[in-house]
């Protein structure tokens, strides 16, 4: 039985389009996402992240899940020379940028382990797909055009994979470069295709924080294919990107 459901968790609209499975399986995935929000949100005083930040927990006392999230944060922070950081000055520990992709990937894993073989999970524009929506066809994942909200600038054809986009669409929004504390310039939109959303999402976010340097940095990441629009509306794409010809 197909199931379609949208719920707002972690401040994100999360859509599940389950082509084979049932409502109970979808609920397990959503339950995990609510649990992840409770445990890892820096905005919830009782979360593990908040308790760590207040010094109530030591690194040795953390759950393996948070250790995994923090090690991802550390790796990307080191790899970007600090442009990407989970330690924003004045805001304390904020691993949200990693938690989102990581938790949504695990939600997809829950669907898969529960027997679903064809689904699409979309969390605030970050996507995990499995199988095919109909026999012989990939999931068609449109990438939002950076200037025109109701159009796309490329369509990817994805079976089992993850697509994440980091972008600034509206004036007044900004992402800060952790190295300088200044708003990032150079890139309008960066999309990363990988087989795991934790990797795709964090790579997109970290590359965005690097500004123009992020173009080449993202392209050099292992198992990542990129589609990047710079401020001059030039597109840089990896030859291995699974572009779907409509």
């Amino acid at each position, binding site marked *: 039985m197909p199931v379609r459901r949208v719920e707002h968790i972690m401040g994100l609209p999360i859509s599940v*389009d389950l082509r084979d499975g049932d409502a109970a399986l979808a609920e397990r995935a959503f339950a995990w996402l609510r649990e992840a929000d409770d445990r890892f949100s820096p905005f919830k005083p009782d979360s593990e992240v908040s308790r760590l930040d207040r010094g109530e927990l030591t690194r040795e006392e953390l759950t393996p899940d948070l250790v995994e999230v923090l090690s991802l944060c550390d*790796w990307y922070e080191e790899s970007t020379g600090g442009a990407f950081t989970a330690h924003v000055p004045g805001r304390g520990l904020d691993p949200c940028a990693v938690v989102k992709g990581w938790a949504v990937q695990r939600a997809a894993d829950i669907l898969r382990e529960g027997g679903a073989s064809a689904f699409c999970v979309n969390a605030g524009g970050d996507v995990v797909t499995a199988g095919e929506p109909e026999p012989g066809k990939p*999931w068609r994942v*449109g*990438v939002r055009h950076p200037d025109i*909200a109701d159009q*796309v600038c490329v369509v990817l054809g994805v079976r089992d994979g993850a697509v994440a986009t980091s972008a600034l669409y509206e004036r007044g929004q900004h992402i800060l470069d952790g190295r300088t504390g200044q708003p990032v310039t150079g890139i309008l939109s960066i999309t990363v295709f990988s087989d795991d959303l934790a990797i795709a999402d964090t790579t997109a976010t970290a590359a965005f924080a690097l500004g123009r340097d992020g173009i080449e940095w993202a*392209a050099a990441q292992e198992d990542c294919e990129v589609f990047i*629009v710079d401020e001059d509306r030039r597109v*840089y794409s990896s030859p291995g990107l699974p572009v779907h010809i409509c």
Partner: protein
Amino acid sequence: MKRAIPVLALSVAGLVPVWLYSPGPAHEGEINEAAAAPETQQQTQNQAQNQPQAAPKTTGSTPVPQQQQQQQAQTRTVSGRAVNTSEGTVQVQVTFQGAKITDVKALRAPNSNPTRMALPLLRESALKAQSADIDTVSGATATSEGYKQSLQAAIDGAR
């Protein structure tokens, strides 16, 4: 830190032929060029022979002399010198099947990023807009308000 090494290895695999191929002083100061440079004359020759196959993959545009092609099926592994750079120590290892590079490994690589290695792997094009038939939208939709207005909401039947 461990993951930086495969990342760098991939980058090196793509670029070694380019470094070796580009003539002239353009790479002056390019830290990794020295690391890719082989230790002996014989290795130099092997790598030179490889250029015709490798160059089109990375640049696609440089005219390439074909005269040095030899049909050797021999497998040979060559390690470059370890080179100290301001970014750390760099050393690569290249495996040849005859005159063709079949593998490149970074034996030692600095952890610092971003690298400037991947540019030749990217294609450049103009930005296009289309209203295609799609199943889902990838984009940065951070707010509920933004979602209501979004294509994804339309797909979800929520608007």
